[in-house]
């Protein structure tokens, strides 16, 4: 087949569809607390003895209901891991280079993926202490934390 390339060509097209996603009661509780009170909520699974973030209705390991197991986490924490993003994609929250880090917030056992900014990416390090910088215009999104910056 590959000897008949002369008839082949390429057509520009698109895959585009409208979507509406629902955060659900549990996710919405987290997002509205972030938006309205600048509070970061975690959830404690008593059975597993862990405090989780991002929010979830159920502990995936023991299936305990976590929908009401809210605890307030600190708004600062420590960089547990990070990568400096140097490539450009339309889905990026800001222009490269920028830092996506896993940030272990005070009071949480699982780190949260978020953006670290306000610092030269090359000086970000594991163990760096950071604090949340909230967006001025908050809309009920995880990006209501605009980014984390060195504490």
């Amino acid at each position: 087949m590959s000897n008949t390339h002369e008839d082949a060509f390429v057509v520009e097209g698109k895959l585009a569809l409208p979507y509406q996603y629902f955060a659900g009661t549990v996710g919405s509780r987290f997002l509205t607390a972030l938006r309205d009170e600048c509070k970061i909520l975690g959830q404690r699974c008593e059975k597993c003895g862990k405090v989780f973030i991002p929010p979830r209705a159920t502990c995936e390991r023991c299936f305990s209901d976590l929908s009401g197991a809210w605890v307030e986490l600190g708004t600062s924490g420590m960089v547990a891991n990070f990568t400096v993003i140097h490539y450009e994609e339309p889905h990026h929250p800001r222009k490269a280079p920028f830092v996506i880090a896993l940030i272990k917030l005070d009071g949480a056992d699982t780190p949260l993926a978020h953006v670290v900014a306000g610092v030269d990416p090359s000086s970000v390090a594991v163990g760096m202490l950071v604090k949340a910088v909230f967006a001025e215009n908050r809309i009920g999104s995880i990006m209501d934390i605009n980014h984390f910056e060195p504490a």
Partner: protein
Amino acid sequence: MNDVKQELIVLRQILSIPQKFSTGPVMGRFLKELRDNRRIMANRCPRCRRFHLPPREVCAICRAPSGEFVEVGPEGVIQSYDIVYYASPDPLTGEARQAPYTTVNVLLDGVQGKDTLWHLLNETDPTRIRRGLRVRAIFNEQRTGSIHDIKYFDIIEGGTKGAAQ
């Protein structure tokens, strides 16, 4: 949660990924013929002699690569039609289409068998459309190598009910 009146967050967006679709040699030949020569080309299975519209790489029935191209149409007979009243999103833009519109399956002159060409009919009045009506492909002046180089099919006024071969 006993918080009955809790606000529920919703995120609305159009998700879109630009694509470049390959025609391959078989569909490519077909689309180029529409663009350059205003010709509708079917291809045929060398074993069962079935016509494919649009042309296909492989005959589904014989599991064999399809071969020769044959010019068919541009006139034919309506085998089935759908008058669509429901406005669904255009997959290229995510925006709503204009309704109503009519899609037809046309058995083109020269096709032996039951493989029809699927396209638009320039008529949405149900009293004016019926199986067996003769129709003709209307080509766009500006052609790009797309199935929409055929603008639509027009009913041939006074056309007699054609016999499917």
